[in-house]
């Protein structure tokens, strides 16, 4: 081997030694399985859009402007999906909650419509930032410490005068909370759809049924406001129980 070749070889070895760098070992984890629960608002057989007109049984035109509710502690036995989901149709669309988990663990779900009294009156700023119960996320769904959270909220504008003039000047406000109105939800046979990147359990919220729950009707002309205040107990109970019954698997 000539001197030139030998020196070239040494040089290459030297370069290799200096350029070699130990690669960082990356430990691979399996893909995180995501579970989503969605709620599609409908009005009878049609999809419901905010600010669009629908006709009530009484013949009034109603435009829903806000639909929100808390689903707290969705669980199957001791397995909890998430601490709380917040449905906010205007701001978050149909998403109620998204959490890591194995769908096989949730073939049945029990949950709370509202926030259980054990945490309803806690400091809303003290929940984790990611929690929908944190005051930054609850936003206008928190009344203050003493009354706690608004469990469900429906706001709407109604045209109660069938004169062809769509005024929609009749305001509907249902803000239901307080421990005595706490409700439970049970979905015994949960079917998860495989979306590829996540599994989804889809619910529907039928606002027609909300107003017309069998014989238990809400006439928006006469029953249009409840803030769960004293004197509004009967309407508050009717509103939240109708809301609970309107929420079913899609």
């Amino acid at each position: 081997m000539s001197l030139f070749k030998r020196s070239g070889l040494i040089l290459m070895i030297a370069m290799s030694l200096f350029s070699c760098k130990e690669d960082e070992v990356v430990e691979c984890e399996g893909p995180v399985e995501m579970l989503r629960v969605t709620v599609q608002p409908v009005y009878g057989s049609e999809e419901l859009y905010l600010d669009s007109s629908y006709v009530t049984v009484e013949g009034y035109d109603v435009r829903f402007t806000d639909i929100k509710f808390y689903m707290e502690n969705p669980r199957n036995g001791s397995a909890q999906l998430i601490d709380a989901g917040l449905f906010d149709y205007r701001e978050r669309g149909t998403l109620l909650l998204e959490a890591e988990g194995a769908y096989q663990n949730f073939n049945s779900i029990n949950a709370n419509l509202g926030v259980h009294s054990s945490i309803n009156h806690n400091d809303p700023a003290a929940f984790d930032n990611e929690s929908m119960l944190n005051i930054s996320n609850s936003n206008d769904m928190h009344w203050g410490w003493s009354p706690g959270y608004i469990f469900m909220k429906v706001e709407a504008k109604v045209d109660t005068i069938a004169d062809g003039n769509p005024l929609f000047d009749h305001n509907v406000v249902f803000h239901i909370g307080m421990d005595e109105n706490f409700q439970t939800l049970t979905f015994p046979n949960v079917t998860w759809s495989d979306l590829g990147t996540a599994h989804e359990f889809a619910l529907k919220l039928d606002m027609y049924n909300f107003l017309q729950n069998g014989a238990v009707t809400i006439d928006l002309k006469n029953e249009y406001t409840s803030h769960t205040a004293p004197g509004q107990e009967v309407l508050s109970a009717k509103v939240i129980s109708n809301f609970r019954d309107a929420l079913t698997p899609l």
Partner: protein
Amino acid sequence: MKYLILIFGVAIVILACKKEKVEYVQTPYELKIPSHFPTMIIPEDNPMTVEGVALGRKLFYEKKLSGDNTQSCATCHAPSSAFSDPEQFSTGIDGLQGDRNSMALINLGWNTSFFWDGRSATLEEQIIQPVINPIEMHEEWKNVVSKLNADVNYRNMFFKAFNSSEIDSLNSAKAIAQFLRTLISGSSKYDVMYKYQNGFSLSASELAIYQTITLEEWSGYDLFASLNGADCFHCHNGPLMQVQKFSNNGLDATFTDLGRGDVTGNPSDFGKFKVPTLRNIAYTAPYMHDGRFGTLDEVIDHYSHGIEQSATLDPLIEYAFQGGVQLDAFEKNLLKQFLLTMTDESFVNNPDFQEPQ
């Protein structure tokens, strides 16, 4: 052999030589968040640092951000007015005026949208706009960058804040955003009332303030939060005294300014504007998106008797059918007394928020 050793030596030197990058280690900035406030979410790409806040503060008061070097952010967001403008409409460098009142910059770190119409989703995004707005500072960012680059002090400050001597609009906005996130107001008489009502322990100084709360102020608080009183709390509550939403609060039956509707194009958003905080309201006159009300009395009169019906009127204004909540003169005065408890002198006069010398 000598050549071989020489080549080998040179190769080693070349390979071993590596340009050392000079790095500056920033000091994390600890926000002074009141105990009854939620945690502030800081964007991952813009962590709070002492150097970033200092730069942002300097930039906030920097007139080079405007086309003729006469206006800074503070021109329309004066500390003495709780970082708002006492004029109905701010006047830009060309003598032009907009049609919306300059918003107060208070507790912005907890806001989820910016501008009256919410067209910016982040503070960083919002800060870019007034500089290039032709009726405001009317400047191009490339010129601003050039002006700042000519100042060695700024080059040093940018380097310390971002580990890069490159000055650009994004880093400028990030620095100003860091400063704005420090503008926290949570030390008013209202805060003591809120903490007392919700069972927080009060410090000695807060207890002293508590002793000064008048019966009128407590009564005004009751009215403020009462469904059958002034009913303000649906949109203004909690430690921030605002909820994050857009609302048509009954100012007009028809709209000359579509507000949020201009951004979304959705007719159901016509006439809606961002709900502002009521903190330091005594300092933030005039009021409403167009600054139409010069005094708190006018504001209270509006909600009491002046509500205008329209298709997008917020359903929460439940007494709209009778023009408002119908407060009498005595109640109006109580409500005003409560509104004044939201004045936070330590915020307005905070030396850390003033123009750096």
